[in-house]
């Protein structure tokens, strides 16, 4: 499971949650999970030898049950290229004009991961405040560029968003303060480069922005770099005015008054060289199919997709490892994430192979999921089976840790067929189902929703070992994993036997997460993603973190923070944006149905 929300990093220590079920006598998934999650597969990082080994295993299992490569395809593997990592290859900045100073240490300048590799010579500089442009549609006028001419110039902007704005304003501004979004705004105004500095009033003041992981294959059309407070100070020093400092400039903007403007920096020019080295690698999706048993005449959309990502985090070198200090660099076994889902698909292939079927079954194993749904996105961009021939797609991501009979079915809003099929199949399966209609899930099901294919995801919930080396096969609940396979097989059977194809329903995305600054606040809460309670249910709190200090615990449901009502995880992330680090905020929560209050003091996240 790829938790695209930055919230993934909120997960951490918590008391052991899983209940270990006795392994079934002849589990159909145990061997698969145990093999794929073993040390030899080295965490199955996309593009690595571990991925290769895992794909060999999957292909040999597919061959064993008689699933074949797609007609016209050269074998089971479908390669795709991606950026496996990026580093700064030697960016530097030289100030000209009244000062002549060159900075080339990584502590002073570093390209942003999405920067173009470019050279800008002796360009004038404009300080553009926070560099935020709120779209007109938001009904809140804020445009850092309103009074500035930045064409062919370099803009210097502050990281984050105005620090002292009232909560509601912050909520809006934070959505448009993502660095990519700021770079795009600068480019659209004709700037040649954007330099980012974390102002003295902000968290991580004066520090360089770490090189973030970015799977994009190329730059975003503008030179973009982060500079230290020292470099910015050197630029401000050219004013020769002790009242005109970065701190003063930031403070003037911090109440978010939309009329406070940036200004030109007349005495300085900059020459910038940005250099991002992107390491390209090749990942492999695996495709195989079982043909319909008696032709597909009269059957609408004669394909059903069944898939899971088989990649994981390797040794945590890229992506979202949450390894504890002592475990950093160890193999991330990914037994639940997602050897469990991979095994469910293999077991489904085996059990469906022997049954008559009216549709072709397409088995899809994704790589690059942990890097941002890269494999499934590449697939839907160049599908081997036309997407309008796909009746439906079923996805499995983290299905090996069932507790208390609870199974989440997600993305059911993508078609009216799901609630009916799920209800019927569950009469004999007997799960305590949590139904989440939202198809915008942080896993490969989202790629198919985007491609207008009715889709569904199965999920048994997050846990303390999520994205850690300790996600191992001995903690998998095989008995219930096998039950999920049977449940899904019943759904596939009914889908496959109905000549009419399900209709697709487009669900509006609840929140636009594209331009978000991300959560910079640390509260130490571990949200439970698997349920839809009204509020934010905690599956745990991080030891010693602010939430634990505030007395919050597993099972509490947060319903209000700093006066803002919380009804879902999106409300929660936005509420976090407007909290102030070090400033206690009132939290209202439910414990066993009883309404309680506490004060929580958020800390800073790097």
């Amino acid at each position: 499971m790829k938790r695209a929300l930055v919230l993934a990093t909120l997960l951490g220590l918590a008391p052991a949650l899983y209940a270990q079920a006795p392994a079934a006598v002849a589990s159909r998934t145990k061997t698969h999970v145990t093999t794929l999650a073993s040390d030899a597969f080295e965490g199955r990082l996309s593009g690595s030898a571990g991925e290769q080994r895992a794909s060999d295993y999957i292909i040999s299992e597919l061959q064993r049950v008689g699933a074949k490569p797609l007609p016209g395809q050269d074998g089971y593997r479908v390669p795709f290229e991606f950026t496996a990592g990026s580093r700064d290859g030697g960016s530097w900045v030289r100030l000209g004009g009244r000062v002549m100073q060159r900075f080339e240490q990584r502590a002073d300048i570093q390209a942003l991961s999405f920067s173009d590799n470019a050279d800008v010579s002796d360009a004038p500089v404009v300080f553009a405040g926070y560099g935020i442009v709120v779209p007109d549609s938001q009904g809140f006028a804020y445009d850092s560029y309103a009074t500035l001419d930045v064409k062919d110039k370099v803009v210097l902007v502050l990281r984050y968003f105005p620090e002292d704005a009232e909560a509601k304003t912050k909520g809006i501004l934070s959505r448009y303060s993502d660095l990519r979004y700021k770079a795009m705004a600068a480019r659209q105004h004709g700037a040649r480069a954007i330099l980012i500095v974390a102002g003295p009033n902000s968290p991580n003041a004066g520090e360089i922005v770490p090189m973030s992981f970015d799977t994009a294959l190329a730059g975003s059309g503008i030179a973009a770099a982060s500079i230290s407070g020292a470099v910015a100070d050197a630029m401000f020093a050219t004013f020769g005015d002790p009242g005109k400092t970065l701190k003063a400039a930031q403070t003037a903007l911090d109440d978010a008054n939309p009329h406070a403007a940036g200004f030109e920096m007349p005495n300085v020019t900059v020459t910038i060289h940005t250099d991002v080295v992107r390491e390209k690698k090749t990942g492999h999706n695996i495709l195989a199919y079982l043909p319909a048993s008696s032709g597909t005449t009269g059957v609408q959309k004669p394909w059903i997709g069944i898939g899971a990502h088989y990649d994981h985090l390797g040794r945590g070198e890229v992506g979202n490892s949450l390894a504890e200090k002592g475990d950093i660099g160890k193999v991330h076994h990914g037994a639940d994430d997602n050897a469990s889902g991979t095994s469910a698909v293999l077991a489904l292939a085996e059990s469906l192979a022997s049954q008559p079927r009216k549709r072709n079954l397409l088995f899809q194993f994704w790589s690059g999921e942990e890097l941002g749904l890269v494999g499934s996105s590449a697939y839907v961009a160049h599908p081997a089976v036309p997407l309008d021939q796909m009746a439906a797609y079923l996805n499995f991501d983290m299905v090996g840790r069932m507790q208390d009979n609870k199974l989440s079915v997600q993305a059911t809003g993508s078609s009216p067929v799901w609630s009916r099929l799920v209800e019927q199949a569950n009469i004999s399966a007997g799960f305590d189902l949590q139904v989440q209609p939202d198809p915008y899930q942080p896993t490969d099901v989202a790629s198919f929703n985007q491609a207008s294919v009715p889709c569904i995801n199965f999920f048994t919930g997050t846990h303390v070992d999520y994205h850690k080396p300790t996600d191992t096969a001995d903690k998998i609940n095989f008995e219930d994993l096998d039950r999920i396979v049977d449940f899904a097989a019943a759904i596939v059977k009914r889908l496959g036997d109905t000549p009419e194809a399900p209709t697709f329903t487009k669900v509006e995305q609840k929140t636009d997460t594209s331009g978000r600054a991300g959560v910079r606040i640390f509260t130490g809460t571990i949200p439970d993603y698997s349920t839809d309670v009204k509020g934010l249910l905690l599956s745990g709190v991080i030891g010693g973190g602010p939430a634990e200090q505030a007395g919050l615990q597993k099972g509490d449901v947060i319903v209000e923070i700093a006066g803002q009502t919380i009804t879902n995880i999106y409300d929660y992330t936005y509420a976090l944006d407007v909290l102030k680090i070090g400033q206690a905020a009132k939290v209202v929560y439910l414990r066993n149905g009883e309404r309680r209050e506490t004060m929580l003091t958020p800390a800073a996240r790097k």
Partner: protein
Amino acid sequence: MRPLHLVVAIACAAVAQLGAAAVQNTSAGLQERDFLTRVRRLTVEGRRAGEGYYSPDGKRMVFQSERDPANPWYQIYTLDLTSGDVKRISPGIGKTTCAYFRPNSDQILFSSTHLDPKSKQLQDDELAFRASGQQRRYSWDYDPEMDIFALSEKTGSLTRLTTARGYDAESAYSPDGQWIVFTSMRDAYNRQLNATEKAALERDPSLFAEIYIMKADGSGQKRLTAEWGYDGGPFFTHDGTRIVWRHFDESGLYADIWTMKLDGTDQRQVTTFGSMSWSPFAHPSGEYFIFSSNKLGFENFELFIVDTAGTKEPVRVTYTDGFDSLPVFSPDGTQLSWTSTRGGGSEGQIFLAQWNHQKALEALRNAPPRTMNVRK
């Protein structure tokens, strides 16, 4: 629908602290899994579902659900608990509620407004309203056109059992299938009301709800209760000798569980729980009732059990936030089915779990004697 003061009540802030302040640990050390195991969800489709009642052989269930694309309100469905097949049995026009299988027969009763000539129009208006993206707060309007019907599953014929103006619903058969106990608001329409009563009817017709009994063919309709306040949700006990129901006070905020003989005599109050306690149902053993109460939080309904004589304090059964109500036992007493919001969202769906009868008996034995909760 068997309850439904709820919405009115929740809007009334004056009592909002009632539950939380009155928390009383009646079941120290117990948890949901002591009573319920293998919790599973029975209904998924549609906006909401509820009031699932078992067939006498325990192999099917009849329930109400808003899942018909052409009808915005509850319709009645049967569910085969082996195959999972679901079938609509109500006419598809108007509102329906409160179905029940008739023992030793092929009949299923339910209440419906389909004979109201305005039904189709009202239904289309509501669909258009919802299509416009608007939403009403959930409310049950005690439609005076609601009457009780019995459907023959074999022939498909629908027999009208009540004709009086006023809401007739919340009905159940006796164990021998010969009698029907039900709730009616006909008292608001069958006589001249004085000014106070007229005002009350405007405000809340359910104040006029009383318990009635009739023969299974609709004959011999007889009123059993007389108290002002919503009397409703009646069922026979499994030996058929008594009726269990809930009685609301005039405020509509407090309700308790009562029993009486079939002729309306010997009325006994089983709970004095100082909260909204309703939807009682008898365990086939005859040892206890299960019911729902907001004792622990005004919007947090949990299930409780209480001995049939009401000598003890009720024992808490569910421990999940939100709505847990409308419980029924399977005919053999080994399963519990109820309506809950535990599956996510704010709308109820039907759940089912294995029921631990021995644990229930033990917990009731250990429960403290009943206290008379004083209303605040």
